[in-house]
């Protein structure tokens, strides 16, 4: 008897919830009138059909927020990119080098780089995020102090490097030596943490398009990171965003730069393989 009631109510759920939901919109994103962004596309094979289509978080934001991202004069992230431009050319550390000493013009040398990160680093024998890589250059090649993870200068530089891949498809490798880290990230993605016992998948896989209180849930991709968040009036890093979501499950979070969040970053990034790099994007 009870069992029957249960099946009926879950059948109702399946049919009513999507009808209520506003879902992603059908707008198109062209930045500066020239960079055409792929914001919806076929899900990569390694998602095994869990999402029918992958959709950028941009589609779940208001028209006003969307608008801010379509023009670099309106995108508040660009101030931070300018700061990074300066850092790029500034000599620091014992070797007397700036980034430009080795990489010259970022607008040429950094094209396509962000699209492939996080990525296996042979020398280090581990997966590197873009920030790990930049810090390796700072400590090993410049003789400079590493930048704090997800803090000002590191994020600004990540935004600058990302900006030179805008419009190119995210394409991180998940096989070969990165496979183990990717698996670890996947496991974290599906783990129900904290007193609320919620996994990333509960919100971003099973409920994207639905509202949770006032928030319109997206698929939680990171093709737009680092992202300018209007709510914080600041540039927010990928791993800081993850920490916020984990904290909201009433769980103990992981530290930025920790092996767990590096693995999660690789995994989440791979879910968006095929979407355009949008970083630095604008979200609310």
């Amino acid at each position: 008897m009870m069992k029957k009631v249960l099946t009926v109510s879950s059948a109702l759920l399946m049919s009513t919830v999507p009808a209520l939901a506003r879902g992603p919109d059908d707008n198109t994103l062209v930045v500066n009138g020239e960079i055409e962004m792929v914001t919806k596309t076929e899900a990569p094979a390694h998602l095994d059909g869990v999402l029918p289509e992958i959709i950028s978080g941009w589609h779940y934001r208001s028209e006003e927020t969307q608008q801010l991202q379509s023009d670099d004069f309106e995108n508040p992230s660009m101030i931070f990119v300018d700061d990074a431009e300066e850092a790029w050319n500034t000599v620091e550390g014992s070797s007397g080098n700036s980034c430009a000493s080795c990489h010259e013009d970022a607008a040429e040398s950094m094209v396509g780089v962000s699209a492939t990160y996080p990525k296996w680093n042979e020398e280090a024998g581990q997966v590197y995020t873009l920030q790990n890589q930049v810090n390796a250059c700072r400590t090993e090649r410049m003789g400079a102090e590493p930048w704090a993870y997800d803090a000002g200068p590191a994020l600004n530089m990540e935004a600058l490097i990302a900006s030179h891949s805008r419009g190119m498809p995210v394409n991180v490798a998940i096989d070969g030596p990165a496979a183990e880290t990717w698996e670890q990230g996947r496991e974290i993605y599906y783990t129900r943490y904290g007193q609320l016992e919620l996994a990333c998948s509960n919100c971003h896989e099973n409920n994207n398009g639905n509202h949770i209180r006032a928030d319109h849930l997206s698929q939680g991709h990171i093709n737009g990171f680092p992202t300018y968040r209007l709510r914080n009036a600041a540039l927010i890093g990928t791993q800081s965003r993850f920490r916020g979501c984990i904290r909201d499950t009433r769980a103990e979070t992981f530290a930025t730069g920790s092996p767990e969040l590096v693995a999660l970053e690789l995994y989440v990034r791979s879910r968006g393989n095929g979407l355009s790099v949008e970083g630095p994007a604008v979200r609310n």
Partner: protein
Amino acid sequence: MRLSIVSVVSVLLGTGIASAESVDPTEVQYDEYGAVEASLSGVPGDPASGAEIMKSRAKGNCIACHEVEVLKDAPFHGEVGPALNGVGSRWSEAEMRGIVANAKMTYDGTMMPAFYKTEGFIRPGDGYTGKAGKEPLPPILSAQEIEDVVAFLMTLKEE
């Protein structure tokens, strides 16, 4: 007489602290369908308080996931769970108590959090601080708050 003292005490102590009379979260008796027959506090629930708990972000925050027509004075009702209009006609009080205390006993693997559960979590936190918490954690709602919410839900009858 005893009962009224208990309710005064639990009002004074506020959330999370079980009064002498309430059933400990680890001792709640769920039947095989997830229902809980006995009151958790021994004190009848107050529907008006239950409505406030459901709206409050710091308490139940139930409307984060559920739409409830009669609670529309509070903004932003979510779409993650089913609308709760008329839910008092769909479940008995014991079944409702089981769903609010720990919905996973009724719906295996549901996304709905357990509101009267204190241990067995993965990386339990100290509230919303992101820092480690130590089990047993205080339950999200106290025994009396669960009873209040159940009392409110039972007033939501199908037209």
